């Protein structure tokens, strides 16, 4: 057994306290204040003078300020032993996903689709094309891999193309999983990502029986949606709403969600997009920027935009969302809610793109229609463009070999923000994540280059926006944010700033 040097356990220069691990930075519009974030995710804002006193061990340990910082796990007062177990539990809680193994299993049952969306990330095929559906042997082997994963809670997501075009394969997979789960006894959630165009009563009855969550795409009002998601009949928006209505009637409104993808045409209409979701009775909107994959990559010049343009849109949309929530319309923004959950609670969020270690492979396995296994949807999209470097193996490859495959070695090496240049000392590191597949797609390097990364620029701008709101501490805004994080009505939330803000007052 090896022991640490005694200095590791002693107070620094008899200052009366020890620093606990933390990072720091500043918000662009508050250069005289320092944001301090601990490894546990708790944070505070300090004046420059107070921050330097704290970091230089010049803070009087008997003051309220020192006690507040100790309460936030940023320092440890006195000579008592540091309660390692408590800090270890906090760290383990934030990294809980690490101990589960892959919990999201994506089945791409077909590449066929009846849409020709301008921003499509997938290399879709025409509805009548043959040879792009998952066959039964592939499906059964993929289910073998699913149950080799150690996770007790599994999400099985069906994607395409348009997966409803291969409904019988979905039915076969679900029935196979349900039969095997009688002995496995896992908690399984089924998700279908579909346009919902032409969904039948029989299909809806099946989805209700197996408690599916349905996810569709709604890009905003009809003119915008139909521009982004053209059909020869120019009725995509109307058919989507009709599908949503029928799905809600069959499964209940809580089980039908929608995502919006933002093209250049969307950026001028943040308020209209938000209001359209409210009018259509949704309780969540996910304002997603374009991805640099698949067909979308070819359309970026025409439909793409810079991070600054996206953030101008997003700031307006978020401000409008806050106003509408305070008026009594309960509509969360999914991405802000993910980030706020990470900032305001001790728990790990489940979002695969913002994990460290990366969610790719460790949290997700994707089974493509042809039997290839990928660590994420994005890796599959790269493969569809001819770059198969992230192909982990096939559905016939044992789980252990998949997780030890060469692509996973690369992802593990580059998927830890705690060790990446530009991430390791970033003040937002406790809440952010690494996605080596995305870094490779954007910058041709799994490690990525943070100073020129659009992903990093957007993440940084998002955190700066949210921490700006948190620092302002407006009681109404805090109520809205807490209602999103706690999944409660705004009216049920008392307006209180986060505990951490008190230390800066």
């Amino acid at each position, binding site marked *: 057994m090896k022991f640490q040097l005694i200095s590791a356990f002693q107070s620094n220069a008899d200052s009366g306290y020890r*620093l606990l691990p933390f*990072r720091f930075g500043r918000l662009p519009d508050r250069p005289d204040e320092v944001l301090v974030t601990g490894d546990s995710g708790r944070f505070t804002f300090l004046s420059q003078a107070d921050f330097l006193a704290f970091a230089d061990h010049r803070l009087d340990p008997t003051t309220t300020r020192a006690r507040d910082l100790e309460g936030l796990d940023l320092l440890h007062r006195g000579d008592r032993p540091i309660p390692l177990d408590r*800090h*270890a539990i906090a760290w*383990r809680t934030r990294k809980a996903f690490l*101990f589960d193994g892959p919990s999201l299993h994506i089945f791409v049952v077909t590449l066929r689709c009846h849409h020709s969306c301008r921003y499509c990330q997938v290399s879709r095929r025409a509805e009548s094309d043959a040879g792009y559906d998952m066959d039964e042997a592939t499906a059964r082997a993929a289910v073998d891999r699913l149950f080799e994963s150690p996770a007790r809670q599994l999400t099985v997501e069906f994607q395409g193309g348009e997966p409803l075009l291969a409904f019988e394969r979905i039915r076969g997979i679900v029935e196979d999983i349900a039969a095997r789960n009688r002995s496995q006894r896992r908690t399984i959630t089924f998700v279908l990502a579909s346009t919902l165009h032409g969904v039948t009563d029989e299909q809806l009855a099946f989805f209700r029986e197996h408690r599916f969550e349905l996810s569709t795409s709604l890009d905003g009002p009809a003119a915008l949606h139909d521009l982004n998601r053209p059909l020869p009949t120019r009725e995509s928006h109307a058919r989507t709403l009709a599908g949503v209505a029928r799905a809600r009637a069959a499964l209940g409104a809580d089980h039908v969600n929608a995502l919006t993808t933002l093209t250049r045409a969307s950026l001028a209409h943040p308020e209209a997009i938000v209001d359209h979701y409210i009018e259509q009775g949704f309780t969540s909107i996910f304002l997603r920027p374009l991805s640099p994959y698949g067909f979308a990559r070819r359309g970026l010049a025409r439909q793409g935009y810079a991070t600054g343009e996206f953030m101008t849109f997003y700031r307006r949309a978020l401000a409008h969302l806050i106003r509408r929530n305070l008026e009594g319309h309960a509509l969360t923004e999914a991405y802000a809610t993910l980030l706020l959950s990470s900032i305001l609670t001790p728990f790990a969020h489940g979002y695969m793109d913002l994990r460290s270690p990366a969610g790719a492979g460790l949290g997700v396995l994707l089974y493509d229609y042809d039997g290839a296994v990928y660590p994420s949807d994005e890796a599959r999209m790269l493969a569809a463009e001819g770059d198969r470097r992230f192909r982990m193996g096939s559905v016939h490859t044992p789980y252990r070999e998949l997780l030890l495959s060469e692509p996973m070695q690369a992802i593990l090496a580059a998927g830890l923000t705690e060790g990446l240049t530009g991430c390791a*000392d970033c003040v937002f590191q406790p809440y952010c994540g690494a996605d080596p597949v995305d870094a490779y797609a954007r910058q041709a390097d799994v490690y990525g280059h943070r*100073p020129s990364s659009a992903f990093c620029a957007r993440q940084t701008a998002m955190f700066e926006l949210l921490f700006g709101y948190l620092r302002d501490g407006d009681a109404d805004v805090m109520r809205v944010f807490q209602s999103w994080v706690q999944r409660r009505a705004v009216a049920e939330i008392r307006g209180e700033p986060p505990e951490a803000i008190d230390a800066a007052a």
Partner: protein
Amino acid sequence: MSIHEVHITIPHREAAHAIVQRTAHRFSGRYTVAVADEGDRSCVRFDGSVETPEQLEREFRALLLDDMLRARIETETASLRQLIVEAALRSALREPEAGA
């Protein structure tokens, strides 16, 4: 008029070369940056369109001060951080269902 090459020299007695490299890396999205260790000092060269070299140098030195502080904090807290992570991983192996 913009200048296309700016040099900033930092003596090692002010900041270790590794810390100068860390700060210089932060600018590598805006400029082509080269850092050379020249015995008792680090020389940082920025290539690109620089409107006000004085402002660039002020910004660089402010970030360098922060990075020097970060390096000191890391040195002071790294062993504790390692102990915490080790304890967390040990507990996860010991009690796989607890605390997560």
